[in-house]
């Protein structure tokens, strides 16, 4: 039998997948746009949070600048779609390769440091990149880039028009699920075990004959790719990109999302993103100051439940199990 944490993760996976299916069917049937687009957005930012969780929850590296790769992916995909060709596959392919290279280069800078230094370096890298983009006229400077064309995706069954919110929701769901699947697969490989070992005690890795540098670099590049591919979906949904995508608030929000959902669970960030995005949309209808509420919730979670919502579910399941055990003995 699976342990409680794995069971909790499986449960959340199923619930999220079930609600996605329900939303797609009901939404398409009723011709809804708002909720489908909201769910798509939460998936996109969920992908970003996923990359933060890979670094923070699995390897133990807190990145405060993951928006750098997210924004990079968004800008690159917007450029490809506008200037090169309106092709989904091409955009994702180029973004994947380019972000892997970017992540590889950045890893040499960021991974020289550990702990809080790593957090501050990633923060600084993203801040500098955001400033550069903000002031580069050919990238639209502070206005960003508008007019990203609506995609026609070629499939063996004919062309798919992504302007249909339901279809694009499915495409994003598929993309993020693939990214999630890849990360889960990596966790089951020896590299994944090394990641967890690095998280618990990096110094001791050398005692059992492993170097920590390689696995850390793999994780860093993977995180960059996951963030960038999620970012690549953004201009397809919104039709524009802006330098705000690289700002600290985006990186910070991703960290909040991960902590809310549950650090180190990979599905927690997706759950957190769904909740946070819906919450923002609900609260945004009556006040523009949603940060204050989210900040308060965040502080409360860090203090009282550092393991996030999944942690709460695990505790709950353990209690239920204990009761069952008691029942058996009586």
């Amino acid at each position, binding site marked *: 039998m699976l342990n409680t944490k794995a069971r909790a993760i499986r449960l959340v996976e199923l619930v999220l997948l079930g609600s996605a299916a329900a939303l797609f069917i009901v939404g398409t049937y009723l011709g809804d746009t708002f909720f489908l687009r909201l769910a798509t957005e939460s998936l996109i930012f969920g992908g970003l949070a996923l990359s933060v969780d890979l670094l*923070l929850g699995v390897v*133990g590296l*807190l990145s405060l600048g993951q928006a750098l790769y997210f924004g990079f992916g968004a800008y690159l995909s917007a450029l490809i779609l506008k200037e090169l060709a309106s092709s989904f596959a091409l955009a994702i392919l180029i973004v994947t390769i380019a972000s892997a290279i970017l992540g590889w280069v950045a890893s040499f*800078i960021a991974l*020289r*440091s550990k*702990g*809080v*230094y790593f*957090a*501050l*370096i990633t*923060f*600084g*890298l993203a*801040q*500098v990149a955001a*400033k*550069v983009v903000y*002031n580069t006229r050919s990238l639209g400077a502070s206005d960003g880039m508008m007019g990203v064309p609506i995609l026609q995706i070629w499939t063996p069954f004919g062309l798919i028009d992504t302007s249909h919110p339901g279809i694009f929701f499915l495409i994003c769901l598929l993309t993020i699920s693939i990214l999630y699947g890849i990360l889960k697969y990596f966790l089951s490989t020896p590299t994944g075990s090394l990641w967890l070992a690095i998280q618990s005690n990096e110094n001791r890795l050398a005692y059992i004959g492993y170097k920590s540098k390689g696995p850390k670099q793999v994780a860093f590049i993977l995180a960059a790719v996951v963030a960038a591919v999620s970012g690549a979906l953004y201009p397809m949904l919104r039709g524009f990109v802006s330098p705000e995508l690289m700002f*600290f608030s985006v990186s*910070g929000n991703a*960290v*909040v999302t991960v*902590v809310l959902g549950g650090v180190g669970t990979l599905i927690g960030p997706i759950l957190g993103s769904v909740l946070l995005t819906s919450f923002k949309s609900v609260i945004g209808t009556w006040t523009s*100051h949603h*940060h*204050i509420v*989210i*900040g*308060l919730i*965040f*502080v409360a979670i*860090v*203090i009282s439940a*550092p393991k996030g919502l999944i942690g709460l579910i695990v505790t709950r399941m353990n209690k239920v199990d204990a009761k069952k055990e008691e029942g058996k003995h009586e």
Partner: protein
Amino acid sequence: MLEALQYIYTPQVINGLSIGVAVILMALGLTIIFGLLDVINMSHGEFYAAGAFISVTLMAMGISFWLCLLLVPLLLIPIGFAMERLLIQKVFHYKDRHILTLLLTFGVAMVLEDAYKIIWGANPIKPSAPISGASEFLGVMFPNYRLFLMGFGAILIFCVWAVIYKTQIGAIVRAAAYDKEMSSSLGIPVMRVYALTFAFGIALAGLAGVLLAPIYSVFPTMGRDFILMAFSVVIVGGLGSIKGAVVAGLLLTQLQSISSLFISPVWSDPLVFSVMVLVLMFKPAGLYGGMKNA
């Protein structure tokens, strides 16, 4: 050549110095808090903004700028004390407290920034300089307020150094940073020292806010733009080192202000950051070690 030195470089150096002094005040707060508590205070920039906003409000109530210099830190000390006691202490016993306290202060920053928007609005407020006029120095005119800022800041930085290294209070703080258990068994109320040190760091940030409000405008996200520079200074100088903060603060702000003569100011931030990366590559703990090594 000499004229270039006099009319181009000197003003830039002096301007860099006046900003440098304020950056050092910010960085001192950060580095003291880290040196003692091992806490990266992500809300430091927001307390800098708090200092500026409170001074603007107090001055609107008719209180003079000079009294603000005293009142704002006094108001911020209990706030910092309460924050340390009620929030940071709560996660202090976890293994990954480095990251948890960073997240916690990040959450506080989020709340504060939005609170400023609600209370004071998003538009920049520009208070008038308390000292008007300009003086001639080496044949170039300088605003009197900037000259005052440099002098006052330098005295303040010296006072902080003297308190930490030359007084008994400073010895207690350093002892608590060096060995928490041993200090507490010698009768030092370590928990209270932690809270007071945190409050002291916050008060320094607030004071920097009061001092810089007449130069830059006051707006809710003002801390965010400033904090990267302060973090770079602290990293280059060595987390927890007072001497490092001063040296790196002067170095980086001079680099920023002189380089902006040759390259677009847009690129001076990346330049400062590259220096930080270079320092980290060759001296991962910064130029000077932490407070514990003192």
